[in-house]
């Protein structure tokens, strides 16, 4: 499937689960606007990313302008606005990891997957992204795959590590 086919601006409908989760979240705050980020996370969790059509749908529930939701959705780099792979690899490129061997680690991941930063493998399995800190500086270089953080990562161990994420 090409990415353009995934962008549904016209026919986007929030699922009942997404809708009720957003409405639930909204009631935690005095100002529904405060639930913007959570709402985007709910959609992203269900779909892997936030399609354009989700913006007016979320704005509608929260009762705020679409431009406000779009502003939040484009501000945070961890809200994905184009389709991503089944697994997200975030390789830390901050100072400590850089000294600790980030470059060779990144190269090995890129070689193993055949993609560069910001790209997704052809089989839709992995998306590779840089991240500026994982709070794991004592075990540099660090990377994160989905929810799992790995420290002291080595180029040699990468193949086995990636195998765990089918």
């Amino acid at each position, binding site marked *: 499937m090409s990415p353009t086919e995934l962008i549904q601006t016209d026919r986007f409908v929030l699922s009942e689960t997404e809708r009720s989760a957003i409405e639930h979240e909204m009631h935690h705050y005095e*100002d529904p606007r405060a639930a913007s980020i959570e709402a985007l996370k709910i959609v992203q969790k269900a779909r892997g990313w936030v399609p354009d059509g989700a913006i007016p749908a979320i704005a509608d529930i929260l009762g705020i302008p679409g*431009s*406000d939701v*779009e502003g939040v959705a*484009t501000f*945070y*780099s961890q809200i994905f606005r184009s389709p991503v792979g089944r697994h997200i690899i975030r390789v830390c490129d901050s100072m400590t990891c850089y000294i600790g061997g980030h470059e060779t680690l990144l190269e090995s991941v890129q070689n193993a997957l055949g993609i560069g930063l910001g790209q997704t493998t052809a089989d839709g399995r992995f998306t590779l992204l840089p991240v500026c800190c994982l709070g794991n500086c004592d075990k540099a270089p660090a990377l994160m795959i989905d929810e799992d953080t790995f420290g002291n990562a080595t180029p040699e161990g990468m193949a086995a590590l990636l195998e765990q994420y089918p």
Partner: protein
Amino acid sequence: MATIHIDGKTYEVDGSDNLLQACLSLGLDVPYFCWHPSLGSVGSCRQCAVTQYNDENDKRGRLVMSCMAPVQDNMWISVEDEEAKKFRASVVEWLMTNHPHDCPVCEEGGHCHLQDMTVMTGHNKRRYRFTKRTHQNQELGPFVAHEMNRCIACYRCVRYYKDYAGGTDLGVYGAHDNVYFGRVEDGVLESEFSGNLTEVCPTGVFTDKTHSERYNRKWDMQFAPSICHGCSTGCNISPGERYGELRRIENRFNGEVNQYFLCDRGRFGYGYVNRTDRPRQVLLDGQALSIDTAFARLSDRLKARRLVGIGSPRASLESNHALKELVGAENFSTGLTQSEQELLELTLDILQNGPLPTSTLRDVEAHDAVFVLGEDLTQTAPRIALAVRQAAKGKATEIAAGMKIQDWHALAVKNVAQNALYPVFIASTQETRLDDVADTLHAAPADLARFGFAVAHFIDNTAPVVTGLSNEVLAQAQSLALSLLAARRPLLVAGSSLGSRAILEAAANIAKALKNREKAASISLVVPEANSLGLALLGGKPLESVLDLSTADALFVLENDLYRRLDAQRVDEALSKVSTLVVLDHQQTETLKKAQFVLPAATFAEADGTLVSQEGRAQRFFQVFDPTFYKPGDQVRESWRWLHGLSSALKGQAIDWTLLDHATEACAAAVPALAGIRDAAPKASFRIKGLKLAREPLRYSGRTAMRAKINVHEPRIPQDQDTAFAFSMEGYSGTQELRQQIPFAWAPGWNSPSAWNKFQDEVGGHLRAGDPGVRLIEPSGADSHWFSVCAAYQPEAGRFISVPVHHIFGSGEMSALTPVMQSRIPAPYAVVSSEDAERLGLKDGAQVQLRSDTQSLTVTLNLSTQLQPGLIGLPVGISAIPVKAGLVIDAIEECVQ
């Protein structure tokens, strides 16, 4: 007050200001971007850094952002400190890294704040030699062009559009050095005040698309101080002309009126001036004549006849008065229908004899509770709506003050207030575009008035009581009365746009009730057209009373399309009787098409004159350009000049092309209530250092060549006998000497609208020479009676009563003739309540035929959940739709496809 020391000099400044305001108010050049007098400080661009010292012995100091540093007594700062200067140059350099080198093709060039600031800081060489970030631009509709690559991310546009003007469809997207200001997707900007983006944006991201069609630099345009004719608010404008065409309208700062902002009707609705189908020649039965021949023939025809004159609320006082002089007061009509005139006279009566002073437009913002009765302000007097929005947000400033946060601390104020608003209550027939800051009540006009009467009674129980209201409405009226009483300064806004006398009477009662309770309240009454109030002060008979004409009469119609006021049949009948119909107008109106004699009248751009705004402020507008300079045969003249000339010809005197001052003086002398108009602007003899005031910037170019295709011998520039302005760059255009009338804002080093700083007593305050215009009306409080409560609205079975629906784009007679407006004007429609539609089996969007006893109309049907059953909303001024209120529609039938 506070004493501060800047670069070794000592100054007295306002202690509540920030340092940037203080420095700018002192006339010092401190560069800035994100700060704006109306938007306050956010401290994001870092451009206004200055050095602050601990005391006079501190030689090192530290950089502070002047817009975020409150003025403190005995403060020591330096603007000229080397480190501060270097820092400011480097800030511009950063901002410029992504800015394209496109000044020569950028429409902001020559009035660009970014250019000015770059020059001011001395950054003149780009060191950055890498790729620049680029963006795609959006199509934002017919008014505003978008060029995001030029953006320096100052955030002024969103702060203006969202925070100030309440728009919802312009946002900021992305983060760090990749931010985008625009809509979520392409589309027309929804705000009625979007045009201000072109002035708020310090560079060329948002520019005036209407100017783009026929572009030239600011320095190549000729300007004059003018007054917007779009509605009764009387905003001050600075129209720019080149080659005999009006090319742009910019805001002209008036600290008591519009300050920095205009509405889109006023800014973009000028295209009617440039229409090629305008009458430009004197015509006798369709045949062009020279002016002398025309006068001779016309005098022959007019001799020994009764002359009847119909004036106009869109013509100047001078023109109306000249007509009144020509025909005599007993034969002069205001050009308003009986019902329009009665409403206007009542409005004037409330303003003159009522207890409350009329609020200036700026002062509207200073009220802490607003009741809007029956007006959809955004459509009928848009700039007032923007001011009411600021009044609501005044609550934030109050909360902030309680926390010792200065009002200029924009983000802190916004944050601490958390959307808190002063109470605004809007009673209207349907939703309005101010509802997001207001509580609302929707009802039929009569019931709106009854609600108003009830509010008056709850404020002061000596006011007549309203019986038969539902408990819910009573509770709303009571709670509104309490919030008006609780306010320090409540404001009452009403008007005649619904054509309801009862609404004005209810407003009068509320005004009186507030006065009885000793509230420091104000009133603001919206009237239909630019000079409606002036015409009311001038006086005259209603239209109907002069239309009983005979063949022996000669009828003059001044800048008035009678077909917009009365049934076509009635007008046809009246006009068919007169053998001599003289029409003075600048557009091909239906009335003009019936004329035997056409005298081509000047628009505001080619004329001088005086208008009285709804505030009762007499303001003079001045001629921007002389059309005969480019078209020597052009016969367009001010109406007052035509009429006065005719008057002389009839008396057998030589035609006296009288001065504006004489026309104004004649009017002021004849009508005591208008005596003040003499002082609305300086006389033609006004000089500064012996100089007239320049209409053109010093760098105006191409004058020798611009007429070369007509004749290589450059003629003398037009001589302006009427005013203190010259059609030239020669003359005074500086900021040092006091003057109120400023054709264009320019000061050395300041080419953008930010140059207004240099004319103000303090930035964002008032013009140093005083704000232009004279208030003619102060209330006497002499009226002491209560108006009695009107009857409740009763829907009539099977019939519909029309209510006027006003549109900012479309309802203004002249702006609607502007080509660029066409796409924003709604197609002919009618709106009824959903209940009625359901009963009649009609769907939203259906093509329907409306039938009244006199006519039938085919329109698209819209449904409303707010409009009362039995009412039918008809858009005002939209072609084919009759404008008068209270039309009875007997049937609505779906058209068979």
